[in-house]
């Protein structure tokens, strides 16, 4: 998993550098206690402005980013920092599970999404994977993507790039297994492909989610109220 060529500084030592962005001090303290011995927490921030300053200053490998922040929200942080620090990866954490929040932060450029009820071990694993350049799909996020890219839904589509506007059958299979709670390793075994191939499918899906011009995607997310 540790591939030095696409690992940002900090993760090569095995302990990725992390900045925590969440407006609840109690939650930050809890996360710090859970992951503190597996990663280097180099900064914390409670607002969008603080987060941007801290990330600029510390250049972490991974930013654990709350989707909801008092002065703008996670997408604002990603949009502000990503152009100048492309090596920084964002892992979105949210308590709301609303499609709108999830889709907006992923489309802003986050590399993964997990819910705040995730276990400490899973969170550590997710951070390590994001630091190594992989994408992290929670079952819920996989479900959202499957739902958003389903055929026969919505009205006429304005297809600019047809390739970006649909998932290949293989990608759908991978997503279904992710939604069923399978790990990358288990998916590889199930589909008789390597873990690297599973990762490639997953990051292709994320790219499609970010770049698709599928015009109902944002509206779909806004309309959908699912917990």
């Amino acid at each position: 998993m540790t591939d030095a060529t696409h690992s940002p500084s900090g993760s090569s030592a095995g302990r990725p550098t992390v900045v925590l962005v969440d407006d609840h001090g109690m939650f930050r303290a809890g996360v710090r206690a859970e992951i503190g011995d597996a990663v280097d927490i180099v900064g914390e921030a409670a607002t969008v402005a603080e987060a941007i300053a801290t990330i600029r200053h510390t250049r972490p490998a991974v930013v654990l980013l709350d989707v909801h922040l008092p002065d703008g929200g996670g997408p604002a942080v990603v949009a502000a920092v990503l152009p100048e620090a492309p090596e920084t990866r964002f892992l979105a954490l949210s308590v709301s599970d609303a499609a709108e929040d999830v889709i907006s932060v992923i489309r802003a450029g986050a590399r993964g999404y997990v819910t705040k009820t995730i276990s400490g071990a899973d969170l550590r694993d997710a951070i390590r994977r994001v630091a190594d350049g992989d994408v992290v799909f929670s079952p819920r996020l996989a479900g959202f993507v499957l739902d958003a890219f389903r055929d026969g839904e919505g009205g006429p589509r304005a297809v600019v790039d047809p390739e970006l506007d649909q998932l290949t059958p293989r990608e759908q299979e991978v997503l279904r297994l992710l939604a069923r709670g399978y790990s990358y390793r288990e998916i590889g075994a199930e589909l008789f492909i390597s873990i690297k191939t599973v990762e490639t499918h997953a990051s292709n899906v994320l790219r499609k989610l970010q770049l698709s011009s599928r015009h109902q995607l944002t509206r779909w997310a806004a309309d959908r109220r699912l917990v």
Partner: protein
Amino acid sequence: MTTSTAPEMGIPRLYRPVHGRWIGGVAAALADHLGLSRSVVRLAFVLLSFSAGLGLLLYGAFWIVVRTPPGEVENSRRAAAEYLVALVSGVLVLLINVNALSRGGWFVPSVLACFGGALIWRQASETERDRWRRLSRNSLAAGAFDRVGLLRLVAGVALVLAGAIFVVGKAGFSAAGVVLVAMLVTVGGLALITGPWWLKLVRELSEERRERIRSEERAEIAAHLHDSVLQTLALIQRNAASPREVARLARIQERELRIKLYGAGVPNGQFGAALQAAAAEVEDTYAITIDVVAVGDHALNARLDALVAAAREAMVNSAKHAEVTSVSVYAEASEAEASVYVRDRGVGFDPEHIEGDRQGVRGSIVGRLHRQRGTATIKSRPGEGTEVELRVQL
């Protein structure tokens, strides 16, 4: 907003200075603004006053319209004196001109109207003035852009013209003039005098209504928090020794709040909501966490009812036998078929050797679905968890 942000360069803004003025600071303000000597401007005002009081009138108008610099507070006694002086100078001008212009009949009411308008303008706060400026711009500009606005403008002008023609034609200009002017003066005067008061009243009413709605919302949220969240927190404190019970209570509360906030999971006759409800029930009964991910949806029917019941049974099995704290459920529904996957990472078992007391699997899951021409596949191995795949055609 655009009007109040004057350029800060070169020419000083037109403000009546608070210091170094003789009466209202009008002459000083104009002199500073135009880069002239203050004495020259004062002399000009005095000279103009001999021309039928024009200087006085201009001075009063500037006094009313031009503000003092922001931040500089005027002596309140001085401000009161200003009104008095303005009033006296206005009356003075009227008296000077009353002989020359009495036959025109229009002069007195227009001066009164100007005076009243200026009074309202001065009483209004800066934000109100900005709003009025915007409003007047909008209603004028609306004629050009907005069809409804254009219609309103045309209708208004037509009505005014029709009224004027009617009155003039009926009564002749001279007779109509007197009555009309008297009426206009009365109505205008009333409007001018009570205008600010009306504006204030309307604003206060709407503010009060907003405040009431806000406080009602607050009361409702407080009541809900008291009924549910505080009770749950009390229960959690009493059960602090049992992590499983604490997790169960927290989970119940979380679900309740989500329903309250997002309205999700409320039974609505759809497959997805029914599955969520079944999962919630199992969660509460067996103190485990069940994450349900549902893609697509379909209205409930006999087959989907059976599918939900079978899925519920599979969740109960995982909860009872797998020795895990969480179970994942994935459901997908389309027009043609629906499927549910119930997966745990627990102890697993050998599906070939289902014990006699585990009737749930055979009867409640497999049998139930077979009756609806569905299928149930159980994948499990000791130590590797269990996944139950349930599928029905629609």
